[in-house]
């Protein structure tokens, strides 16, 4: 039920009651005006998200995944042009003014950022930072808000929550700070949480604790989540559905298991193959993606991945592939010669037989 508009309307609504749908993004484009020209950071993205579900948004730096989440929330600087629609329940986020958005942030949609140190105010006690949204949005009095803050800290597994409330961010470790940021995001009971690389700045042992915490909280609150990450390992274990972004577009989207079992887009396959895996013996040669992502000031005319793609043919360099449906429901991809099909296999063999020179650098 994801993809461009035609896929959205074709989704079997009778199977999924309409009220389950929380967020619907349609043909969203976000362009930055810079002295060098227009940067198409997000270029025609559509997807829908149901209550309580998790969408993983994967891509390399510069693929537009963070701009997409900020664009949906309306957290963008002035030099930006936004087109398309963002519907949240019955509200059009893209048409809201700053004041309306302000009442929406925190209570309906919240966000957890990558770096917990810079998203907390260093000169304000933890307690005050948690009670602030409670008092502002929910109109609680001080005592009520403090009780609630205590409960929130306990719910994100912070030991000695009473003492923590009186501490400053620098007195906490990175993992604890991220828990505080999550507690603040959850304070007013949002229906949708954007987690933008929430564990990238943390150690692996802490990462698994934070991801488990997000999952539990999500389940308890029937909260939907968009998990933005570059780590396919994180996505595999913690999402219902995955959208892979490349150069400002969704290039493949599918339920998580389907995606990993039968990926169609060569970029997704290449991304997965470039990760060092524990299952491989040491000194295994890694498969690399040649070259680097395109310049978003002037993206390639055809498929945006074509210059780096081992499957690319003349058609890919000329004609941009549309999102098309795969066999499994809800699986869409953007490729003329998909992985795991006869067409794709032929294209790959043709390229291997007559190797095209490819860039080396990164």
């Amino acid at each position, binding site marked *: 039920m994801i993809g461009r508009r035609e896929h959205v309307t074709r989704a079997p609504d009778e199977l999924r009651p309409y009220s389950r749908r929380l967020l619907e993004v349609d043909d969203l484009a976000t362009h930055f005006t810079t002295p060098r020209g227009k940067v198409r950071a997000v270029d025609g993205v559509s997807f829908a998200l149901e209550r309580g579900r998790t969408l993983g948004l994967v891509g*390399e*730096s510069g693929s537009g995944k963070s701009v997409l989440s900020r664009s949906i929330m309306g957290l963008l600087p002035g030099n930006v042009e936004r087109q398309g629609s963002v519907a949240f329940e019955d509200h059009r986020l893209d048409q809201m003014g700053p004041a309306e958005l302000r009442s929406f942030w925190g209570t309906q949609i919240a966000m957890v950022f990558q770096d917990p140190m810079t998203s907390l105010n260093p000169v304000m006690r933890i307690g005050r930072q948690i009670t602030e949204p409670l008092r502002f949005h929910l109109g609680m009095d001080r005592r009520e808000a403090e009780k609630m803050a205590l409960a929130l800290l306990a719910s994100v*597994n912070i*030991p000695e929550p009473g003492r923590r409330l009186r501490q400053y961010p620098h007195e906490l*470790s*990175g*993992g*604890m700070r991220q828990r505080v940021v999550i507690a603040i995001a959850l304070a007013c009971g949002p229906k949708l949480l954007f987690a933008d690389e929430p564990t990238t700045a943390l*150690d*692996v*042992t*802490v*990462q*698994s*604790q934070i*991801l488990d915490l997000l999952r539990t909280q999500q389940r308890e609150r029937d909260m939907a989540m968009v998990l933005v990450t*570059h*780590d*396919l*390992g*994180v*996505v*595999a*274990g*913690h999402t219902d559905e995955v959208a892979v972004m490349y150069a400002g577009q969704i290039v493949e989207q599918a339920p*998580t*298991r389907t995606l*990993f*079992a039968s990926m169609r887009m060569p970029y997704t396959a*290449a*991304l*997965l193959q*470039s*990760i*060092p*895996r*524990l299952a*491989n*013996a*040491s*000194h*295994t*040669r*890694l*498969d*690399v*993606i040649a070259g*680097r992502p395109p310049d978003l000031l002037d993206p390639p005319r055809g498929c945006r991945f074509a210059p780096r793609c081992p499957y690319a043919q003349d058609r890919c360099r000329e004609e941009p592939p549309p999102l098309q449906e795969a066999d499994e429901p809800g699986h869409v991809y953007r490729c003329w010669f998909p992985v795991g099909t006869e067409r794709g296999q032929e294209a790959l063999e043709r390229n291997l037989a007559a190797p095209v020179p490819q860039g*080396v*650098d*990164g």
Partner: protein
Amino acid sequence: MAGSGTAHLRPAEATLLRLENLDVEFPAGGGKRVSAVADVSIDVAPGETLGLVGESGCGKSTTARAIMQLPPPTRGKVVFDGEDLTALDGERLRAVRPRFQIVFQDPISSLNPRRKVGDIVGAPLKIWDRGSEAERRARVDEVLEAVGLDPDTARDKRPHEFSGGQCQRICIARALVLDPKLVICDEPVSALDVSVQAQILNLLEDLKDRYGLTLVFITHDLAVVKNVSDRVAVMYLGKICEVAPPDRLYAEPAHPYTAALLESIPVPDPAAPVRKAGLAAGELPSPLSPPSGCRFRTRCPRAQDRCAAEEPQIRLVAEGQYVACHFPLVADEPLPIKGSQ
């Protein structure tokens, strides 16, 4: 873990680098001292890659810096190529420095934004007054080409014109230009995207063969370290827990901390069974007052009374596998009855 001992060291003549009972302490407020690295011994054979893994704060970067004598360790020896670096000072230490180099985590902040790439990479040659102008230029071109950059286009550009991965290539070229024997890589791929990370890891393997390098590779990413290393040392709170060849370490970790680390890595496969990291809740204890006995005992699922009383010594548990633990995860050494798994 928190173990000491030197059982895992090989004969001195077979190693290029040998750290013996290394301690690094930093002054903390109130006359206290933080012990960042405590009694660490490890060695690296010529042509080998040693992987140092651990969470932030475990002392892996401090160990790297102690090898570089930046700053020198508080106690202990750093024997490099038969010479104890801690005994050298001033000009004598400077004279050995060209033979060991370091590559840092953030490639962009380790390059001077105002200088041209050719000058950055050529600076070490100039400082050491190696060769003529033309020879230096030829050497710079050679290393730039070796790291996969086109010397003619790269030479006159400045760092901001390159991506993060390319900047890391420039840093590697600069480290190689003096033809060092040992290169310490401190989280060289942590700031890079996965696709670029793979390119840099492959590059390091190629360069190791081409120039006969010995590498010390520091990272928090266990999959990366497995890929590049010949021997892996796992650190926790300033101590070494386990030393083993990577395939052995990952297949049968003997230290409970190694096992917990391995279990917390997310696997890129949704069908993989959900694993539970066997790590007691809680945080890394403060290195200002580390736990008595084994430093890992406060988070260890196998901890016993003995772990608080007595620091485990590193000992051999399988071929090439050394562990500092009283109750390692090896089949023929079951936990005493009191234990709870």
